[in-house]
């Protein structure tokens, strides 16, 4: 069903429509969050928080573009916040690719397949800003301009980060992809 219709129905109190939005985009958004954070725990929290915030603000929410892109942007923002908080709390410099935090840990409710582990491990070695642009562009299918808006930098900067990021990934994944 058309996303805009689902949103309209949600706003009129149809909770089934909210569930359909959640089920439609859950996996895609989890993959975005895992690819960005290389941490299943952060991804679970980010998706949960984004949908709770979405529901809180739904009655006055206006969809004027792609719902998927909108939710992917929200997930990216939330992952950024959660990673920042976690770094502050643990004084870790960032996601450590040697730490397999995407592994099936006890208590975790989301598990990744091998491809996602590989891609998130490779992305974890990139600077956060390059990682974000690549994930939002290649998986979230956001336009560079939309990524620039959400990250607060110019379109040219976003394109530059994307180019450097792809170059770095290419050498990291050389022979694997």
């Amino acid at each position: 069903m058309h996303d805009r219709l689902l949103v309209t129905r949600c706003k009129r109190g149809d909770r089934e429509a909210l569930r359909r939005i959640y089920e439609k985009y859950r996996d895609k958004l989890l993959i975005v969050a895992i690819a960005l954070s290389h941490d299943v725990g952060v991804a679970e929290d980010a998706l949960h928080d984004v949908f709770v915030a979405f529901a809180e603000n739904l009655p006055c929410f206006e969809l004027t573009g792609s719902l998927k892109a909108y939710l992917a942007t929200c997930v990216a923002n939330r992952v950024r916040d959660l990673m920042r908080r976690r770094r502050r709390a643990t004084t870790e410099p960032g996601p450590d690719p040697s730490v397999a935090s995407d592994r099936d840990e006890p208590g975790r409710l989301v598990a990744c397949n091998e491809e996602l582990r590989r891609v998130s491990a490779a992305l974890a070695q990139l600077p956060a800003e390059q990682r974000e642009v690549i994930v939002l562009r290649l998986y979230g299918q956001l336009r560079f301009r939309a990524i620039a808006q959400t990250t607060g930098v110019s379109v040219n900067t976003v394109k530059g980060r994307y180019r450097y990021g792809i170059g770095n990934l290419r050498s990291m994944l050389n022979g694997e992809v």
Partner: protein
Amino acid sequence: MRSQRKIRNLFARSRVTVDPRFDERTMRDTHVALDTFEMAESASEPKKWSITMSRKTTKIAVAAAILLAALLGIHYLGGSPDGTSVAWANVLAQMDAAQTVTFTYESERMYEGDEYCWTKSTVKIKEPYRRSDGVDGHRYSDGPDHEETNICISDVSRQNRFILINPAWKLAHYAPDHGGNDTLMSYDGLRKDFRDGTEESLGTVQIDGREAVCFKVSKDDKVITVWADPETALPLRIERVANAGVDKVILSDIAFDVELSDALFDMTPPADYCVMNMATEEFRVPFELTETHLIDELATSAKELSGRFPTRFGRGRPGKEALEKSIAESRQAVPMEGRSTPMLGTEFLKRLPEDSDWKYVGEDVKLGDASKAICWYKPAGSATYRVMYGDLSVKDVAPEDLPPIPWQTEEK
């Protein structure tokens, strides 16, 4: 470009497995959030959340179309990779040249846990309009099939101005922009997405009792298979598969340059239809909303729950336990087909005056039980309340004689 494609393919093969407890926790908390807002809604002015996505889509699409048309001129000079007479470029040229197109559109998508969505419709295209008449279906892993018959019309020249008409419920949803959907845009998507795809000939085959040339066109993780008339290069059938076979779309019975009346693309909602404007959220009801609409919606809700009234109906018993019960009930209920018209009851409630003191206490009351009240409200200017009972009867009751609210009685 190649690296990007490889990385994109790696993403495309990425999957997650989600424990149902995660879904339950997230959905429970989203419903709590929604409840919290609904309770606070009357007390405070809502803050405005909006996202403005790029509105230059149309301009870019036009630019892309011009560019692609130029590229096609170059590509068209080629031919089939294996030397047969008809290639994808020839088919594309026919598709581009057609003034009108009609086809049957069928799609299916499998989700985890046997959840399944499908669409079957007839699509008609007469630039700049697209129209689809058909059925959208959905099956949950833990519920029955649901189907909704709709007519969708979109005007792509005006930022996808859009109307969705449900004749069964005399209900229309209208949007002045951003209304393109998968069914309406499927044909445009094929023309655009696979223009520079990799082509592989599958030779000459029989389809629907006639001879056709067949070839595959691949782009990223998506593949289409095309059957075309060997003489005219007109496509007979196109199948599109994506996401490792999870998404499937079939276009068949394709006909070009068919006479299509302009009336088919009239986007004016019928005068006797309820119309939701999705941009302004104004809901036009062409008749007076009455208590009967509320009673009908209450009855439908009870019937969906095997003859007992739901835990909550807009309002109801507060607390986490009641909320979780209400969520579980929503899974049992028929989600879509029965939800368009019954919303008129909700609309009736929304339009009650602020001092109507609407209360819902129908949790678990059996449909037909005349001894138990399920809800009440005070009409504008009335000294008495209208109390509705489990048998859907209504009585005028003085404020001092109102039934007790069960959870308040239990607290005492």
